[in-house]
């Protein structure tokens, strides 16, 4: 297979046979060969001079890399709850039937494979799929039929109708961030303030991370700047894997000037000369366009050496593509992934600001956080801090999806009430809102006067609306599946706990559950929160716990124990055992009535 080794050879050459580029090499090779065959893996390992196991562990970690033959058309249905609500299940079945396939199977002629994947960030225009990592939105039965026909005749993806791949921004409300920025203006403003001056403005702005944790960005910049060493890195976290979140997609699509200049400003303040954009594999459609934006920025002296003529202001940006893996949004896992390894979170401390990418001080910040730096450069920190609340300054992008008339992106000052957002997006009667994605919180109508802010309802921006007909149990079950699918497997409580949680939810869904399982779910959520290694496991039980606390009837309806009164009382049957062991404590009793 000379051709295959040519493909490998070219990819290796493009990446200078650098093992830290392994993930990028694998992605590019697979785009041409459709999968990573054992001999391909061996060629790559040999070419990089690494053990074959390193290649295998990377291939097997990322959802979009395959070590088994997959179709020339690899179709993945986004399976977030919002896609479900828009009817993706029927469309999925329809496509499988038309292509005469089972889920995950490759057709006999190697043409196609169809499977499910986690949220692809198109919740405002679903149901969505990925075809060879390119997003197709607004799926209908008709569109499925058209796609099946294109697959049947073997039409190259480039010849498919462009409207299939059309992705709307759906910007519904703007404040300061979602406004155009004159190229170079923010850079000039930052340069005029000087490195220390800009750092002071960052701190004065009280900007906090928009990726979820809300860490003060200025403090992070300062930590990285003060860390010993000559080389530093800025990483723009564009993994956006949290189900229901899609604001970074819009920023990268239409406000890349803000994002890229924000990165350069971060580099200026921190003393970093290199930046990475970690772009999730699901946003493959943005890659070339973003690369063009970077290239034109470089051509106009806004990247490269002595940016805008400022001596010593050297900074450049490179895109790294992800390959399917929610956990790679976690900062330390992202850096592992950037180094070409499986995205498993590191042990902390040391923190990333001192020991990050390749062991060097590294700032990992969310797309939106970095974009805000352009505002701070231009208007100054004090002015920025006048928006929002005292402890949550500035504006926040909210990704609204689900049961409402106007799904899309809404920019608000921090402190906006949930009720206001619901009103603006044209939601009718609402049962609940899931804020912050699968790892977030479930909010019921009594709480709609609560505010979006770090001090109240803190969120990276996902806002999924559930109307009166929605079954909150199914929402929680969808999220339970998500976490089991996305657990990296590093630590016991999350690796095993998320699987057990998923299995219990499935058992209850099948009508075979009892209060025993319900109690186990509660304990599991608390257990995972307390013992997991990273935020994924820590939050993996939240959705189920909230659903249980706030929508208990949705569970009880399904419990066997409610429909069937057991012939014997287990609680009573335990009485002799309690007598023999002289126990009467709470543990010696069952948590069931009768």
């Amino acid at each position, binding site marked *: 297979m000379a051709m295959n080794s040519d493909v490998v050879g070219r990819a290796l050459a493009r990446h200078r046979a650098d093992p830290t580029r392994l993930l990028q090499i694998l992605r590019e090779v697979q785009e041409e060969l459709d999968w990573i065959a054992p001999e391909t893996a*061996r060629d790559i390992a040999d070419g990089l001079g690494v*053990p*074959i*196991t*390193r290649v*295998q*562990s990377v*291939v*097997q*970690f990322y*959802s979009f890399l395959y070590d088994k033959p997959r179709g020339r058309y690899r179709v993945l249905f986004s399976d977030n709850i919002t896609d479900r609500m828009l009817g993706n299940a029927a469309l999925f079945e329809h496509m499988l039937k038309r292509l005469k396939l089972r889920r995950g199977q490759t057709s006999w002629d190697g043409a196609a494979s169809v499977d499910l994947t986690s949220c692809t960030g198109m919740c405002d225009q679903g149901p969505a799929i990925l075809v060879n990592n390119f997003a197709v939105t607004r799926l209908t039965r008709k569109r499925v039929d058209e796609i099946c026909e294109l697959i049947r005749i073997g039409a190259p993806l480039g010849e498919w109708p462009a409207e299939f791949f059309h992705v709307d921004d759906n910007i519904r409300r703007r404040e300061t961030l979602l406004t155009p920025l004159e190229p170079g203006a923010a850079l000039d403003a930052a340069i005029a303030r000087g490195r220390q001056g800009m750092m002071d403005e960052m701190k004065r702005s009280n900007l906090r991370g928009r990726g979820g944790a809300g860490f003060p960005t200025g403090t992070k910049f300062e930590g990285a700047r003060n860390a010993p060493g000559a080389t530093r890195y800025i990483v723009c976290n564009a993994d956006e894997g949290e189900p229901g979140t899609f604001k970074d997609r819009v920023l990268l699509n239409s406000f890349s000037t803000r994002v890229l200049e924000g990165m350069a400003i971060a580099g200026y303040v921190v003393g970093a000369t290199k930046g990475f954009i970690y772009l999730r594999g699901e946003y493959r459609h943005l890659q070339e366009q973003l690369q063009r934006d970077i290239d034109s920025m470089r051509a106009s002296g806004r990247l490269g050496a002595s940016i805008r003529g400022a001596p010593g202001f050297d900074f450049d940006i490179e895109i790294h593509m992800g390959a399917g*893996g929610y956990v790679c949004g976690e900062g330390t896992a992202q850096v592992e992934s950037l180094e070409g390894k*499986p995205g498993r979170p590191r*042990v902390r*401390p040391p923190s990333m600001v001192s020991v990050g990418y390749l062991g060097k001080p590294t700032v990992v910040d969310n797309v939106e956080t970095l974009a805000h730096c352009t505002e701070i450069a231009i208007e100054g920190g004090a002015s920025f801090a006048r928006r929002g609340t005292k402890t949550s300054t500035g504006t926040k992008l909210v990704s609204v999806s689900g049961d409402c008339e106007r799904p899309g992106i809404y920019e608000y000052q921090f402190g906006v009430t949930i009720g206001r957002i619901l009103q603006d997006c044209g939601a009718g009667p609402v049962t609940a809102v899931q804020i912050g994605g699968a790892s977030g919180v479930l909010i019921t109508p009594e709480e709609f006067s609560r505010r979006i802010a770090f001090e109240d309802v803190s969120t990276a921006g996902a806002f999924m609306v559930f109307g009166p007909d929605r079954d909150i149990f199914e929402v929680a079950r969808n999220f339970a599946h998500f976490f*089991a*699918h*996305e*657990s*990296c*497997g*590093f*630590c*016991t*409580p999350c*690796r*095993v*706990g*998320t*699987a*057990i949680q998923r*299995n219990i939810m499935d058992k209850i869904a099948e009508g075979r559950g009892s209060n025993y399982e319900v109690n*186990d779910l509660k*304990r599991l959520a608390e*257990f995972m929160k*307390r*013992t*997991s*290694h990273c935020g994924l496991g820590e939050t993996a039980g939240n959705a189920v716990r909230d659903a249980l606390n706030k929508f208990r009837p949705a569970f009880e309806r399904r419990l066997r124990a409610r429909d069937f009164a057991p012939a014997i009382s287990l609680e009573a049957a335990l009485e002799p055992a309690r007598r023999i062991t002289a126990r009467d404590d709470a543990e010696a009793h069952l948590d069931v009535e009768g």
Partner: protein
Amino acid sequence: MDNEFTIDEQPVPFKPGQTILEAAKAAGIYIPHLCFQADFKRHGGCKMCTVLVNGRTQTACTHKAAVGQEVDVNTPELDAMRRSLVQMLFVEGNHFCPGCEKSGACQLQALGYEYEMMSPHFVELYPSRGVDASHPDVLIDFNRCILCELCVRASRDVDGKEVFAVAGRGLDAHLIINSPTGKLVDSAFAVTDRAAEVCPVGAILKKGVGFATAIGDRPYDRESISAEAESCEIPEVR
């Protein structure tokens, strides 16, 4: 004394840079662990060594001791978490102790006794995993692997061979072997490797020495696993 913190309200000295687990071991205090062994790089994945540090859960094998820290090790709540962890590891693999050569010398089993695990509690996952008996001197039964990565670290960092790695995500995570066939016999592995010694469970077993020590006479048959702290050593079967 300056470098001192407390474990269950008892003062414990430490050397700068020591983890809580190392300092505890040196002081003869037992903190349970599975993926930790003194000679290898920190890992922090099994979570057996979870303790409270000033009220927050931390892994003692990775968290550095610091002056004035208040560490809780023995609380009913932590013990319950440890029991759940052991139960999870049991249901995740296929562990049939009575038929396992490691019985009595297995740290997972010993921790099951230590934390009074009376049942697996969770529904068994019964994964479909294989056995690699290809190597003349050593057998690997993947059914019992708990993914502690001690063999990975030993082979990479001590033997300099990188024979083992973990691949796959979530519950699919599994041990793989660096050889053209994926079989141990075709790898650089040798029975004299450090990696042949470190498995805390019955996943990596030497051939030909089975039952040299009778069941009943094995380390954890005689003493509970928590007794190891006094000797500061992990008992080995010979």
